[in-house]
């Protein structure tokens, strides 16, 4: 089938920052994304898991955003402004999509 080149950006970030990331993306005109739950993880700040948390506050989420290649930099700039001081990871992959008009 006919597919179109795009970029898939995955941002793993602390749950209390999710709303801010969403707001910043919206302001940058990025309105398509999906948020996935995260059970636990490990990084420079050690290992954590939901089980060891009193509240959702200390958990993380993964935000996946598929975007046209030419808009990637806008997205990254916006995301970086939020992620900068915080823990978390930003990972970009080449991908292809059906229904390009959606992105």
């Amino acid at each position, binding site marked *: 089938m006919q597919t179109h080149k795009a970029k898939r950006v995955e941002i793993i970030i*602390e749950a*209390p*920052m999710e709303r*801010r990331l969403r707001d910043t993306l919206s302001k940058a005109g990025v309105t398509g994304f999906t948020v996935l739950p995260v059970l636990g993880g490990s990084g420079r*700040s*050690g*290992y*954590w898991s*939901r*089980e*060891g*948390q*009193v*509240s*959702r*506050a*200390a958990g993380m989420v993964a935000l996946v955003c598929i975007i046209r290649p030419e808009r990637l930099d806008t997205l990254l700039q916006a995301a970086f402004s939020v992620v900068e*001081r*915080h*823990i978390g990871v930003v990972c970009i992959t080449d991908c292809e999509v059906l229904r390009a008009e959606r992105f």
Partner: protein
Amino acid sequence: MSGILGLAADNLLSPIILSFVLGLSAALARSDLSVPEAIAKGLSIYLLFAIGFKGGVSVADHGIDLRLGLSLSAGLLMSFTLPFVAYALLRALTGLGTTDAAAVAGHYGSISIVTFVAATSVLASQSIAAEGYMVAVAAVMEAPAILSALWLASRGGRTGGVESGLWREILLNGSIVLLVGSFLIGWATGPEGLEEISSFIVAPFKGVLCLFLLDMGLVAGRGLRGSRGVLGGGAVTFAIIMPPVGALIGLVLGLAIGLSPGGLALLMTLAASASYIAVPAAMRVALPEANPSIYLTLSLGVTFPFNLVLGIPLYVAIATAVTGG
């Protein structure tokens, strides 16, 4: 003194404390016992709703008096000032940097609602009455400490500007809204309202508290295991000294206001307890440089068990002793 020890021993043998100990032991022994996140949140919604509602009903029942305003003010005052006391102690006792010390200090100005709930249940089992509006005092003490903590941190060179939106988030955080909301509902519907739902919020309350404390024990134990080496002896000392210091300030203010023995014990407990929900979430956003392991472990892993096991019986004993109640 022996009376206090007796109380502590009694307290130790209650199903509530033992459930906490079970959770703690299971986590330290690395059992895979766990309470699903959704269940833990459901239990805490139940506890907040029940404790708020019952507080409101008690206000509807006994009416409000002049002391309500004074108690709320005392709560606000303590939430604002306790972080400074805590900060001074931390700088004296530990080698923590400005940001970490400020973040920890904020937790000790705020309160732990489960510690409060445990104290009400100890009072209830000893048939000591308390002012119903202490629940409202708990609610107003949640947030102000955060402001003090950010101010303390900003002195250390951080910009400290509190992002717009964070305040709404802090003041309208779920626990505060639920606690205040159910307090108002209880107040509005009064004893008849309570009668309608008492077999839900009164009868099974203590049992639900057991399961919740089982989970708190698990979380505290996992936290302690995960943070071995992060904390020095100074920090742990702080987390054990600060509660009685806070309780003492609460005692003085409570006596000045003229609270009942029960109310006094609750105000002391609030002052002595440290937040582990509202404040950590705010700190992740506003002070991301502060290390969460430090403040969570101190608040949840040291101060919470200390208050639960020794602090509460101590505060209750002192409150009844000084008021001759």
